[in-house]
């Protein structure tokens, strides 16, 4: 954890970590006795589910809860469904856990669901939405032809992370091949790749346009890349897709290239594991592997009141169970000792102004938080730029009163959407 410097006349700067030039292969985690698949749809007991406990699965079999469901997962192994359970995230969004017991004996060709990859968006949406790296095909399909630029994020968005740098460096050829497939698939005119400007490992990305990103956080966040490199300012409440730009992980393209090469879905996800001492280790795990199995394998011991962070220290989320599975968008897992967890408080804002100095988009955070604390979401959006927030978390990082500012803002945006949906 980077502490406040003794002299703090100017605002503090957080810098991104650079990839270690030694591109050692990730350590492979064997497939555990049970895999947990996270399907982002809640169980609805009034409808008839398409699968149930005890069903036998092929490797790569598509699992959809109901006939009219739009979301699905692919089973990474041949095996049987052991149990179904419900899951809810920190905003109360519900999902379904599908527990699959792999059957290592089933390796025959007929135990793998064959696919014939086609270079069109409908096929991708139907079969490739669950690739490691989470290629957002559903979003791409919804945006239709309006996507004019794809940005491959070779520069990690969060600090200390190097997973994206690693995948785009170690698998550069596959990233390029995947980019070409994607280009033909959605006919996008422009594909760029972001790379940290200080990255010493030079890689040739062929025809991809390279955008060099500064090492100062949050310059690798989508809104900042659009502002600094594409001369586009994200209007409040808009997503990059609304502006015709789609950001994707390099690993998604690696997965895409492999699917077309092997004619089979792929399930191996590269993750960076950061233990309590801050040591980073690169691992490769099958999607659905519970984190507890990874911790066991890597001898990371989890104690009571520790924190498991999925994603980076500035923008990730903390899970409540160490059985949380590896998912397509999981890039980094950080284990934080309970002693290292900074205490938050319910003290009101004292107007020290540090958030104002550090906010990259000039939001009046000191005033905004007063409105958010009072549930004045509409006013916060109209007058105090709630929706301009790019969610970098820097305000909460420096807050003297230790107010969970970033959470207030996320909650505010969430409530605002709910209010507008009601209206």
């Amino acid at each position: 954890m980077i502490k406040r410097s003794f002299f703090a006349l100017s605002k503090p700067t957080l810098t991104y970590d650079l990839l270690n030039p030694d591109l050692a292969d990730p350590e492979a985690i064997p497939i555990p006795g049970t895999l947990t698949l996270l399907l982002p749809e809640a169980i609805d007991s009034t409808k008839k589910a398409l699968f149930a406990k005890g069903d036998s699965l092929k490797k790569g079999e598509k699992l959809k809860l109901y006939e009219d469901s739009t979301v699905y997962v692919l089973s990474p192994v041949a095996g049987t469904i052991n149990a179904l359970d419900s899951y809810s995230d920190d905003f109360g969004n519900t999902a379904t856990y599908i527990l699959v017991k792999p059957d290592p004996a089933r390796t025959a060709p007929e135990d793998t669901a064959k696919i014939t990859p086609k270079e069109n968006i409908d096929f991708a949406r139907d079969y490739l939405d669950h690739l490691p790296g989470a290629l957002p095909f559903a979003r791409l399909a919804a945006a239709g032809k309006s996507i004019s630029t794809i940005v491959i994020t070779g520069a990690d968005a969060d600090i200390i992370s190097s997973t994206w740098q690693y995948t785009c460096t170690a698998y550069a050829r596959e990233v390029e091949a995947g980019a070409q497939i994607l280009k033909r698939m959605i006919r996008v005119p422009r594909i760029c790749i972001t790379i940290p400007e200080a990255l010493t490992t030079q890689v040739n990305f062929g025809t991809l346009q390279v955008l060099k990103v500064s090492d100062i956080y949050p310059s690798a966040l989508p809104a900042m890349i659009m502002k600094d490199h594409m001369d586009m300012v994200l209007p409040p409440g808009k997503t990059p897709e609304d502006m015709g730009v789609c950001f994707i992980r390099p690993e998604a393209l690696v997965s895409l290239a492999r699917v077309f090469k092997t004619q089979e879905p792929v399930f191996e996800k590269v993750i960076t594991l950061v233990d309590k001492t801050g040591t980073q280790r690169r691992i490769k795990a099958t999607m659905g592997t519970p984190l507890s199995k990874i911790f066991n394998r890597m001898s990371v011991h989890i104690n009571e009141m520790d924190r498991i962070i999925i994603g980076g220290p500035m923008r990730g989320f903390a899970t409540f169970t160490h059985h949380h599975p590896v998912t397509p968008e999981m890039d980094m897992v950080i284990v934080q000792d309970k002693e290292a967890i900074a205490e938050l408080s319910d003290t009101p804002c004292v107007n020290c102004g540090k958030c104002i100095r550090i906010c990259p988009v000039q939001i009046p955070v000191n005033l905004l938080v007063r409105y958010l604390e009072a549930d004045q979401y509409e006013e916060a959006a109209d007058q105090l730029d709630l929706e301009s927030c790019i969610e970098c978390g820097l305000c909460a990082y420096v807050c003297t009163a230790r107010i969970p500012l970033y959470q207030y803002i996320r909650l505010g945006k969430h409530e605002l959407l709910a209010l507008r949906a009601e209206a």
Partner: protein
Amino acid sequence: MIQMNGTKLIVSHAPFWHDGDSLFKMNLNYVLALLPAAIFGVTQFGGLALGVIALSVSTAMLWEAVINLASRRKNPIGDLDAAVIGLLFALMVPATMPWWVVVVGTFIAVVIGKFIFGGIGATPFHPTLLAMAVLMMSWPVYFDFDAAYVAYEFNHTALAPLAALKFQGISATGLFSLGDLFMGQEVGGIGSTFGIGIIFGGIYLMLRGYTRWEIVVSFLAGILITGGLFYLGNSQAYASPLFHLFSGYTLLGAFFLATASSSSPVNLIPMFIYGFLGGFMIILMRNIGAYADGTVLAVLLINLVNPLVDNIRPKAIGKGVPHA
């Protein structure tokens, strides 16, 4: 099944890192920065000064504890905010201040100035200054520094510089050398005389990022520019800007009072306006107004305009851009 009853984890929200700062650290640094002035005050004015400081800090914290207990709120004295209010109060009053005035002063500061307005972060006026203003109106006799120190023997002119200037005219400024004023060889509040100590403490706080340098710099600029214009206009009638700078509460006001977080602006241009206005008002009050010092009222006045000027703020990036 997934075992939800396994190891209990802390589930909180991003960011998971913090720069380690806290209100306690901020206020502790305020106390540290005020120590040189306070210690000098004790050496200058003796045990009585120490007594006033101790009484002021302790009663300020006591009032905070009592009022929060009475209103069944979480007791916040651990953040040292009341201690800073009490310490600043002690440093502004003479060492011979009767004990009951100190107790009443900290009551006004903490209970009325801070708690009634909504506690930490919600004080539109600096609590210490509010108490000072009320007391100066109610019992002006106790703020007469010349009367307060009649029993003392000093090696320097035993007159409060600003009162001397006000009542004896410009010739009185000849009694004080700038070096003496700078080194605290003057009569005044316990901690308001030691110019160099206040400056060092103030610069320390600015470097640590606990006070906003923009306010301090523009406040000092307000004093020097306004005072300089008066002086240039008529040096026979008005004291030099440096005399104003090193006398009275000016330095305490610039480095510690005007900069108090919750009653000062946070945006760049407002900080400059706010600070400059403070210095400007002090000189106006001293040169034209009825008050000898004016710092207390000038800072309260800029506290009042703070919410107004702080509306001059940059637009958030992306706001107002036509949809491309």
